[in-house]
């Protein structure tokens, strides 16, 4: 069994009277890429800062490599951190930025040279070593910021929204680079973002956070296919999931006078009945020929459509409630068109109305 690289037990953190993190538990195995995902203000950065030791926690314990580091200084924890604003030292060259921490820790000159050279090679910033941060592009700055964590030769990398200041193209490029870096180094990485594409593509596991608590911790596949709460289901996926308001009855899911069969649904805790939401992802809805094979079929009218290139998002009404689904972008539609759609609720998710938990 591999040891846990980072372990958080019962972490509490409050700013004065405002409780930001409440009894948070998290275990991160060695070498895992964990993404903390959540809406703005849910406490992602706060959690990361607690792990880094930049905030004094109110309660609980933090272990890194089985060492209790709850009260250790950030530099003693074996972590490296990359910030959203890069936080490079503006008056120093790239080389100075990379070596300042090492110099301060009294490393031998040759050792420093070697580490800087290695980081520069991995990140392809050798030609920039003598420049000041002001003379670098955003992507280059972020590379230097990663380099500063890299030279410290740490076990755990912490990233706080490192790509959110970059444009979309550069973001995609650097995302791939970070993934490559992880595959090469095999360090534990904890990565904060509110971009779900980043989360899905990078993560071994994703922790979805909401107001200071982890709502679900699981692989991207689990999070996408078996969201544990309605909030997670809403948060993940674009366009957002459809929620049909209804009741789980014996014959299936009843919404108005429509009944949707629930055969093959993977119940979390055995079949249940009662008021619920049925969540169906827009991309899981089939049309035309493909709809014929689905357990549930219905003829609908196109009310509105949004062409998005690869797909067209079609808005309609199902069981008296607004409903949207994806259609192949090449398929020509017009408002008022009638078509048959179908889906399999085994791929959907049911959430109890009282708890908002997966049924």
């Amino acid at each position, binding site marked *: 069994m591999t040891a846990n690289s980072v372990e958080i037990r019962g972490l509490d953190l409050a700013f004065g009277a405002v409780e930001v993190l409440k009894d948070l538990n998290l275990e991160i195995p060695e070498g895992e890429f964990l993404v903390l995902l959540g809406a703005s203000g849910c406490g992602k950065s706060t959690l990361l800062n607690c792990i880094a030791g930049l905030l004094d926690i109110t309660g609980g314990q933090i272990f890194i490599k089985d060492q209790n580091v709850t009260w250790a200084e950030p530099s003693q924890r074996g972590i490296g951190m990359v910030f959203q604003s890069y936080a490079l030292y*503006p008056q120093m060259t790239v080389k100075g930025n990379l070596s300042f921490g090492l110099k301060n820790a009294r490393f031998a000159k040759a050792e420093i040279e070697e580490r800087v050279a290695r980081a520069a090679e991995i990140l392809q910033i050798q030609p920039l070593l003598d420049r000041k941060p002001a003379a670098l592009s955003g992507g280059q700055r972020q590379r230097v910021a990663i380099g500063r964590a890299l030279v410290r030769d740490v076990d755990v990398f912490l990233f706080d929204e490192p790509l959110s200041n970059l444009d979309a193209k550069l973001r995609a490029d650097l995302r791939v680079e970070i993934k490559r870096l992880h595959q090469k180094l095999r360090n534990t990485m904890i990565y904060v973002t509110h971009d779900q594409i980043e989360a899905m593509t990078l993560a071994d596991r994703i922790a979805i956070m909401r107001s200071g608590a982890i709502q679900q911790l699981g692989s991207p596949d689990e999070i996408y296919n078996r969201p544990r709460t309605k909030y997670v289901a809403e948060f993940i996926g674009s366009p957002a999931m459809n929620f049909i308001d209804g009741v789980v009855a014996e014959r299936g899911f009843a919404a108005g006078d429509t009944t949707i069969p629930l055969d093959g649904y993977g119940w979390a805790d055995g079949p249940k009945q009662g008021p619920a939401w049925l969540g169906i992802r827009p991309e899981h809805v089939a049309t035309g020929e493909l709809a014929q094979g689905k357990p549930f079929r219905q003829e609908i009218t196109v009310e509105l459509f949004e062409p998005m290139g690869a797909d067209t998002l079609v808005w309609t009404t199902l069981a008296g409630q607004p409903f949207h689904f994806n259609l192949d972008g090449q398929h020509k539609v017009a408002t008022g068109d009638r078509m048959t759609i179908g889906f399999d609720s085994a791929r959907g998710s049911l959430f109890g109305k009282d708890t908002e938990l997966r049924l």
Partner: protein
Amino acid sequence: MDTTGRPNPLFRNLSAKIAAIPMILTALVIFVGGTAWTVIYSFTSSKLLPKKLFEWTDVINIGDWSLSIPTGIVWKSFVGLQQYERLWNTNRWMVSIENLFIYGLCSLVLSFIIGFVLAALLDQKIRFENTFRTIILYPFALSFIVTGLVWQWLLNPDFGIQSVIRGMGFVGFTFDPLYSADIVIYGVLIAGLWQGTGLIMVLMLAGLRGIDQEIWKAARVDGIPAWKTYLFIVIPMMRPVFITTLVIIASGIVRIYDLIVAQTSGGPGISSEVPAKYVYDYMFQGQNLGQGFAASTMMLLAVAIVVIPWAYLEFGSRKRG
């Protein structure tokens, strides 16, 4: 070079330039003109009133027209560098210069250090920060005259600090800087610092607050101790604030006048005289404009020697870079 179709840069934003003309004229006439006038008259023997510089001579009449055209000039009242010679041979001026140096150097160094340290302390997210800030900034709301009077009392051996401490039982305690010619300027310095450091602190605090918190976090993760972070990262980042502060402190130093008048009136004897007081006294009390102008021209020269190389470095290099 092909410039067709390109607007002449002179005419770009023409209306804005026209609108700025009155401002430019005012600046030229009042600042440049006034300065030039002072410098010119410092070469004359003007006493109570500025004397006539010159007279036109040899007015000629052309034909029947009573048109006068001056064809020559007779310089009047010019005395060359005489005023300056006299200035530099006056003991009082030499004392003033020496005092300004001591006061200026100490005030510059101490204001910076105390102001920065106070700002750094206030920046530690302490409680009651606003209260502390207000208390420290409060003296700045007082005029130099009031400050001077307050400190005249505080440093008075019969009512002030000395008498209080003697009253506590330390009978031999002596602290009367204002009554000793050798250290009187330090007595003034204390009052000056008390009044001025608050502002410096606030400026520095604003500078510190302008620094990205993530820089601090990065330095902590790198294991850099706080003092090193200040010294090698934060202070270099605060260069613009330091320059502003430097200009404010330096201009205060050169102009120091009212504090002296209120606190010591230049005494004991002439031991706390300063250049600005010399200028004032000669112009308005000694009724010797020429001498006053010469002294103020020397002050201008001193400022120019400091400011011009600095401005050249600061703004000249930016254009190139």
